């Protein structure tokens, strides 16, 4: 029976080739989006699962407000370096503890120099201590975990870095010079090991681990603290709850003695329920629990929802077509029932048919994935692979699960409908009576169109918002402006200023691409005002091309400018009130002395960060009073557009001064594009998904209208014999579908409004909710629906009525 049913299934597919293709192709598309997401989720889940030994490895998190983005307390990945020794001494389960550098966003990498080769910038070079490879069970290709970091001034490379630097992995004993910034003398480190790249990603990611010796000791003075990441390996996997209770006790004692060393009282700081905190989390959970940001799961939620919807749209097509086709199958069901088939047998038969289609879709989907994966990886900056995947077995079982799920979802309802046909009505030749599920089909079509119309509206609004952002006045001139990653060194600056075509050379602590917010509180006429402080050189504001609203900006003619004058942006000026030019405010410095500053100008707000963030009320100072240190920005403005040539000249000067460190720079144009990048990527993805969703819905509508037209062939023929025109017949078929599309539009308007509003609210600078995308989406959906249905209806209408009647 099974074999025969499979045969029937195949013959049916073949008979309805076009619809089967639509069904299967559509499902394959829906599945592809979904499986891509699965791949991505698996990738994220696979972090730090590359060795079974990692289950005993834990990251230490300390609760403090040091170095946190909002200056508030968080459970941080960076802890006081003294905690490593504390654990060694007080926690008996500890096998090894290691301290390692944190990942900083603004870390641009170190320069590595091998013999006389040109230096190269390599990021993720982390300094650690002798225990790193005792905690993390890396496989050594050269050298060994025991010996590698035994001595100071050693370095262990990842396989790929060894190949990049030397072209071979046989590099033990060779030396590499590590130069950390351009004026650094550099340290020569001996290569003592090369490790394999693990087969899953790592939260402690590195290209090389160094042991310079800096991490070996803690500062002697109790008021000095070093912060770094601390990891430990325990002798057995432990209950973190119990472990954390123990740790907390140890930590409070530690904190008390540390504070008394700093001449502070524990009870003064930790009162009113406030407690210090130390805990461990298993290293496998580190990636999923970032200290400040949303974790990947939260970030991925909208995408997951979207791809689930897409899959749903294709499954709906499947259900619709299957139930529509069921008219043709009704007779088979009726006959089989009187031949003695159980209902469950019939249900199984139709489920097998659904399974056949979904398995074909699944194979197609795997092929599609192979095709789109490179583009996907490129676009989302990931490195996913289907076959070369450490979790291939997991993946395959997920696919099997997906297959069963889709088969049941798509096949169960049609199978149920079909197997419930009443044989009498069917055998009487009365198929229509046996035909159920029309209402459901209409609901499903409406649902599909709601999704599609919502997508179209979203694209419209997103497009308008992104056009608004890329054309928005940034408040500074981003053209002909580059930012070199270096501090303001007079020697270098003087050399640059001599190059013709260079108009300004300046530095600022804050510029697009390297936003560094330094909060301060000032006192103005008795009120406290919170500001963001930016320290600039005299030329920085003109170099940026900011617009002056009131007063003036810094100039060499005013001696006082280097002492205590400031310029505000409009956001800050509005906090001070009217007529601020010439006013002064007070600021208490770290020694407790009050300095007074005079406001000499107000400039237009300019953007340093993406449009999702508001421009902060900012005060600009040239003065060293209360200013901050250099932050690795050197702005260079050209007055020619001969970019390449000029940069060549700059690099020549750079090499003279800093031969061991390559020059790193970016144009402000690029920085701006980069600030839009995340958003653009999201919009592109939505556009892609929308296209797929809309075309799937249309395919579904196309196939469905074909069926309806076919089912009504006789009615159409009779009407034509009675004198109906072709147009009248096309309208007849259109009317029923048009109602569905309009209902769908009515529902999607509020749905889209709510979703899009939420998205827009994520931008500090946004357009007002436009009406045009809503109208356009409705218009588009109606036009294409009418077109699709009309093509089918026309076909049915123009066929010779005699054929249809004779056939019956």
């Amino acid at each position, binding site marked *: *029976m099974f074999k*025969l049913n499979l*045969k029937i299934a195949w013959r049916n597919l073949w008979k309805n080739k076009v619809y089967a293709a639509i069904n299967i192709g559509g499902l394959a598309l829906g599945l592809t989006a979904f499986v891509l997401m699965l791949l991505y989720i698996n990738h994220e889940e696979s972090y730090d699962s590359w060795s079974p030994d990692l289950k005993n490895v834990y990251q230490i998190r300390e609760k403090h407000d040091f170095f946190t983005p909002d200056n508030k307390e968080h459970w941080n990945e960076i802890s006081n370096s003294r905690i490593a020794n504390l654990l060694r001494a007080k926690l008996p389960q500890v096998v090894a503890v290691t301290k390692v550098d944190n990942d900083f966003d603004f870390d641009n990498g170190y320069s590595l120099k091998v013999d006389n080769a040109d230096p190269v910038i390599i990021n993720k070079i982390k300094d650690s201590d002798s225990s790193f490879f005792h905690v993390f069970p890396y496989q050594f290709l050269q050298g060994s975990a025991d010996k590698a970091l035994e001595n100071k001034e050693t370095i262990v490379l990842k396989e790929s870095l060894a190949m990049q630097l030397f072209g071979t992995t046989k590099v033990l004993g060779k030396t590499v010079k590590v130069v950390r910034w351009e004026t650094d003398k550099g340290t020569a480190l001996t290569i003592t090991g090369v490790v394999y790249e693990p087969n899953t990603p790592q939260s402690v990611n590195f290209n090389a681990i160094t042991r310079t010796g800096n991490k070996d000791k803690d500062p002697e003075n109790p008021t000095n603290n070093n912060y770094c990441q601390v990891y430990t390996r325990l002798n057995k996997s432990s209950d973190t709850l119990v472990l954390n209770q123990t740790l907390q006790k140890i930590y409070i004692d530690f904190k008390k003695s540390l504070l008394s060393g700093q001449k502070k009282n524990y009870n003064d700081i930790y009162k009113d329920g406030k407690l210090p905190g130390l805990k461990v989390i298993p290293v496998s959970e580190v990636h999923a629990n970032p200290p400040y940001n949303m974790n990947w799961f939260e970030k991925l939620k909208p995408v997951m929802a979207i791809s689930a919807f897409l899959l749903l749209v294709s499954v709906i097509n499947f259900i619709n077509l299957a139930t529509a086709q069921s008219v043709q199958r009704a*007779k088979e069901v009726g*006959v089989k029932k*009187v031949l*003695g*088939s159980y209902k469950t*047998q019939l249900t199984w038969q139709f489920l097998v048919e659904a399974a056949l289609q979904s398995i074909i879709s699944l194979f197609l989907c795997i092929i599609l994935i192979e095709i789109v994966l490179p583009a996907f990886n490129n676009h989302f900056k990931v490195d996913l692979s289907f076959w070369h995947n450490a979790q291939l077995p997991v993946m395959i079982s997920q696919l099997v699960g997906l297959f069963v799920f889709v088969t049941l979802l798509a096949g169960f309802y049609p199978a149920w409908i079909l197997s419930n046909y009443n*044989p009498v009505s069917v055998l009487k030749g009365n198929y229509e009576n046996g035909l159920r599920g029309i209402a459901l089909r209409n609901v499903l079509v409406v649902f599909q169109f709601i999704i599609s119309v919502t997508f179209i509206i979203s694209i419209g609004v997103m497009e308008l918002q992104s056009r608004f952002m890329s054309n928005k006045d940034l408040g500074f001139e981003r053209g002909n402006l580059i930012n070199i990653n270096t501090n303001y060194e007079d020697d270098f600056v003087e050399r640059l200023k001599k190059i013709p075509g260079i108009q300004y050379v300046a530095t600022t602590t804050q510029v697009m691409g390297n936003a560094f917010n330094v909060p301060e509180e000032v006192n103005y006429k008795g009120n406290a005002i919170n500001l963001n402080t930016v320290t600039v050189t005299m030329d920085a504001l003109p170099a940026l091309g900011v617009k002056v609203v009131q007063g003036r900006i810094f100039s060499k003619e005013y001696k006082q400018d280097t002492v205590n004058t400031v310029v505000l942006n409009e956001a800050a000026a509005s906090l001070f009130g009217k007529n601020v030019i010439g006013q002064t405010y007070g600021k208490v410095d770290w020694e407790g002395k009050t300095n007074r500053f005079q406001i000499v100008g107000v400039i237009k707000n300019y953007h340093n960060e993406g449009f999702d963030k508001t421009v902060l009320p900012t005060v600009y100072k040239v003065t060293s009073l209360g200013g901050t240190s250099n932050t690795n920005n050197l702005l260079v403005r050209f007055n020619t557009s001969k970019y390449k040539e000029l940069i060549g000249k700059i690099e020549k000067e750079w090499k003279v001064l800093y031969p061991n460190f390559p020059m790193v720079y970016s144009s402000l144009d690029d920085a701006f594009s980069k600030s839009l990048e995340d958003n653009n990527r999201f919009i592109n993805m939505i556009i892609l998904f929308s296209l797929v969703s809309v075309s799937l819905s249309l395919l579904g509508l196309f196939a469905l209208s074909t069926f309806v037209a076919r089912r009504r062939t006789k009615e159409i023929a009779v009407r034509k014999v009675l004198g109906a025109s072709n147009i009248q017949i096309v309208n007849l078929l259109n009317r029923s579908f048009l109602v569905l599309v309009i209902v769908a539009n009515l529902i999607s308007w509020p749905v889209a409004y709510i979703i899009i509003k939420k998205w827009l609210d994520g931008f500090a600078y946004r357009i007002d909710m436009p009406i045009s995308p809503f109208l356009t989406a409705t218009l588009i959906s109606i036009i294409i629906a009418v077109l699709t249905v009309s093509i089918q209806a026309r076909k049915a209408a123009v066929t010779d009525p005699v054929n249809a009647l004779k056939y019956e």
Partner: protein
Amino acid sequence: MIDLKNIEKYYASKGIKHYVLRHVTTTIKQGEFVSIMGPSGAGKSTLLNILGMLEEPTYGTYEFMGEDVTSLNERKRIELYRNHIGFVFQAYHLIDEMTVYENIEAPLLYKKIGGSERKSRIADLLDRFNIVAKKDLFPNQLSGGQQQLVGIARALAAQPSIILADEPTGNLQSAQAEEIMQLFQKLNKEEGITIIQVTHSEKNAGYGNRILHIADGVVKDDVAVSNNVKI
């Protein structure tokens, strides 16, 4: 074999009962060849459907082989289909996606007949009805008469004790119709299969040995037929 007592069937619409069958009481014995006749809309098909357990009477009792079937569960009913009842339809109702061979095979598969037995039975039927050459064709590649032969072969495959046929020759030319009727008569005489058919033709009814005349849902006449038509 079949015992009907006071069978009634009505459809209620807008609170009014439209009777299709009234007070039908009759007995059909094993080995009879009964023809049901009457004007259009009289309720012939309805009666046959009730006999085939495709429809339920609204009132009355129906015993099939001594068993009350008005209260039969679905599983039991399907067992009866598999083992005792064969249907033949006016519109043939072959399954379009199956070949002639597969159509005949289907009831045997439901009956879980073993492979070799199945093959020999189908070969036998194909041979008997002279359709061996057509066994791999699909129904739409056959003439109406040929399709009905396949329909009957299918009904016979499971070796039923009764065949229910609703206007089996309604769509056929008289020559083909005659062939089918002769076949029925032969099955009835030689294999003792009970046959109940609905027909409009006196001539066809003449092949059987009993005629039930129905009008307005009531059995008006129940006459025995002396077999005047010879094989």
